[in-house]
């Protein structure tokens, strides 16, 4: 069974601080996506990474896919209250037709 573990589970920080969220698995993924989910809404796609070692930037968010394509990280620089939400990683493996979601990191940025 494929599992994606995210850490930390909860994170509460002050506005302006930096943070990193991790997404780890023992499985290799052909692509990995990061989503952000607000309460009562669907996951909103932030980024997709497909190549080992790939780094993508989205404003203050930096996403990295591990060299072995088993793990990923999301780094937020100078966090703002608007970054508050549930961050989810989701991986897809070769030969499957599904995305496995991680356990999620709930981020709260205090003003």
């Amino acid at each position, binding site marked *: 069974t494929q599992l994606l573990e995210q850490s930390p589970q909860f994170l509460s920080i002050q506005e302006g601080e930096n943070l990193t969220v991790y997404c780890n698995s023992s499985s290799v993924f052909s692509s990995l996506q990061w989503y952000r989910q607000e309460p009562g809404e669907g*996951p909103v796609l932030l980024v997709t990474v497909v190549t080992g070692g790939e780094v993508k930037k989205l404003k203050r968010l930096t996403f990295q896919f591990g060299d072995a394509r088993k793990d990923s990280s999301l780094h937020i620089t100078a966090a703002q209250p608007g970054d508050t939400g549930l961050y989810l990683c989701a991986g897809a493996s070769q030969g499957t037709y599904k995305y496995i979601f991680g356990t999620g990191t709930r981020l709260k940025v205090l003003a």
Partner: protein
Amino acid sequence: EPEVTQTPSHQVTQMGQEVILRCVPISNHLYFYWYRQILGQKVEFLVSFYNNEISEKSEIFDDQFSVERPDGSNFTLKIRSTKLEDSAMYFCASSPDVNTEAFFGQGTRLTVV
């Protein structure tokens, strides 16, 4: 910007009743998915669908569930004889190709009473 739309946004049903959740995927996407999220828990895969066939399904997707693409735009999830434990948010998603980026709808909150 194209988006996945789901109806209804909320559905309350009596235990034992049948419900149909509807989705309109992004128009040029070929792969369609249903996921569910029980309150406070992780997003769980139910089923994927391509070329009018189920591509993959999870253990959750038993005989109580079925999917259909009745026309060129809609993708439906039918739950027969609903149970209390079927109460959850149900999300539809679509992707242009297998295992590429998937876009999710806003979800249908199903409450079984």
